[in-house]
Structures are given as C-alpha cells and as structure tokens.
C-alpha cells in the first residue's frame, strides 16, 4: 500500500484500542448499547458510501480534513436524530455521541475508504466489508450492553421513544454489579477478546 497517495490513514493502534474505549463505557444497557452500535454503524456505512466518490474530485491535500469533517457531521446528525427519538437515551450516551466521529468503526471505515484498492482483504467490495463490520459492531455493542445490564442490574432496557425508557425487571438480584461500571465493561471486553481468540484458534485461523 502506498501511504504517500492515501488521503487519511488512521493509526491501527488508535483504531483498535482508543476507538473501542467509548463502546466499553457507553454500552452499559441494552438500549444504550444498541443506540451506540447503531450510531457507529450509521456513521461508518455513510463514510464508506460517501468518501470514495468524493475522492474523485477532492484534491489529496483536502481529503483528510474533508473526511474528518464529514465524520463529525454524521456523528452530530445521528446525535440530533437520537435526541429527537429519546432524550433519555441521548442524555445517557452524553459525550459519547459526538465521539462516534472517532469510534473504532468510523476509523476503520475511514481507513478502508481512503485505500486506493477497490476491494477489501477477502476480495469483497470495500462497502460490503464496512457493512459487515458495522453489523457485527451493532450486534456486539447491543450484546455487551445487554450482558452488562442483565448481570449488573438484573434488568433489560428497551429503547422506546419519548422522554423515558421502559425497563424489564428480569431478576430481583444482580449477580455482578461491577459490570455496570466502566471497569466492568473493560473486564467483559477482555473476556470477549479471549473468547474471540479461542474461537479463531479452534477454527485454525489467525487473529488480527
């Protein structure tokens, strides 16, 4: 890959580690996990859709600032839409909504969209790769949120429209209260990463 010709190539360490931190803190209930995952998927998919055609008429020196401006605008558009849908959800996700502009998924979408090659690693189109990753991110975010809420509070929050969210009381006790805290989110993410490694090893593939 020729880096001289790339408009904006985010650092993979920033993409992988820093980009995933907001997910761990923000997805502390089913509703917040689903809303955060949907926002990340929305931003990433539209970045993948809009950046490649924009590269055709944007000069190389303006591609990086234009990509970041588009990413920030998409994150703001999603946060306003979520605020109109449910002010409780928007208040719960707070600063993490504008941070969708720099979420792990948005940075992956920016990296793939900035690539000069037309296809992704498995020969799929770049947009198909981004769509698949977005879908996985959405499912992971919702599952992480649901698991943290279920084990940490014994409830499940449904993302209903309006000023308040409805909660289903699943259990009268909460076995692992630490999971609703950010530290608990990181612990859960560690276990998920270990599970991912074990699954990859069992299938004979090499991890990222």
């Amino acid at each position: 890959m020729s880096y001289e010709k790339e408009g904006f190539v985010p650092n993979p360490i920033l993409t992988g580690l820093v980009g995933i931190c907001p997910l761990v803190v923000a997805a502390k209930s089913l509703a917040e996990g689903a809303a955060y995952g949907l926002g990340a998927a929305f931003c990433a998919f539209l970045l993948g859709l809009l950046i490649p055609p924009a590269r055709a008429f944007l000069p190389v020196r303006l591609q990086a600032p234009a990509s970041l401006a588009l990413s920030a605008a998409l994150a703001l558009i999603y946060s306003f839409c979520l605020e109109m849908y449910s002010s409780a959800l928007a208040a719960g996700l707070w600063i993490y909504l504008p941070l969708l502009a720099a979420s792990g998924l948005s940075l992956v979408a920016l990296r793939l969209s900035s690539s000069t090659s037309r296809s992704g690693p498995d020969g799929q189109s770049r947009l198909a790769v981004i769509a698949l990753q977005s879908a996985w991110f959405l499912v992971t975010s919702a599952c992480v949120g649901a698991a943290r809420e279920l084990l940490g509070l014994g409830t499940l929050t449904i993302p209903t429209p309006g000023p308040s969210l409805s909660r289903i009381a699943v259990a009268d006790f909460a076995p692992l209260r630490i999971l609703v805290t950010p530290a608990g989110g990181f612990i859960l993410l560690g276990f998920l990463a270990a599970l991912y490694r074990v699954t990859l090893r069992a299938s004979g593939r090499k991890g990222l």
Partner: protein
Amino acid sequence: MMADKRETLVENLAVAAAVGVLVLLVAVLSLVAHAGTKAQEGSSLAAACSGSSPQLALEVDDPAFERIFSLRKDSGSLYGTVVSLRGNGASALVCAFYSPQGELRELHTLDSFGDRLSDDERELTSRFFDTERVLARAAESIRDAARKGE
C-alpha cells in the same frame, strides 16, 4: 503559475461550499432537535406536576439542564426543569420543581428504574450522583428566572 493559483482557489471554494452545506444541515437538525426536546421537557413536567401547562421562562447554558419552565399550581407558582443527573457509569433524567425563591419542592424521576430502588439504594444513588451541586445550580437559575419574571 497564475492558472495554478486560480485552480487551487476554485478547489478551496468548492470544498468550503460543501462543508458549508454540511454545517447548514447540522444547524437545521440541531434546531429541530432543540424544539423537540423543549416540547418533550414541557410535557414531562406537565405530567409530573399536574398544574397549568409549563411556559418557558429561561434558557440556560448548563451541562445538566437547559431550560427553566414556569407553571401554576393550586398552591402557587412553581418553576420546573428537567435535570440530567449522572455519576460513575449511570445517568437519570429527573423533573425538579422549585419555589420562586429557589427552594426545592419536588423531584420526580423520569426513569422507571427509580421505582425499583430500595431506600438504601436511593440513599447510595443520591450519594453516587453529584446531585447536590447540580440542584443548587438549578436553584440559582430559578432565582434568576423569577427575578426576570417580576
């Protein structure tokens, strides 16, 4: 040389115009969201405190609350606001009602989770949240709104 400069200027203007359109779109959406939130807060306050329909008294620039509403009840005039209380990994929206002197009268949680808290947990939760400072700032804004309303 001159042609290059002209081309660069046209490119810059085209990108500035595109970014301008994006900014316009975001600004329009923010106004729509602002109006929607204002209506939602008004209806939440009306539902929490069965008085007259709330009227916007003051808009404030505070991270925990944005609008102060005035409303009338049988017991006299009240001011209300929807406060976002947050702590270490938790958040809740609360309707807070104050007297014109800034004295806190009622608190209603907008979150159904509040109904599930036991008394001990309520106490812990209220410690958990940095409630006191937020409610004091709201009281100060209510006194401002009351002074402006006189």
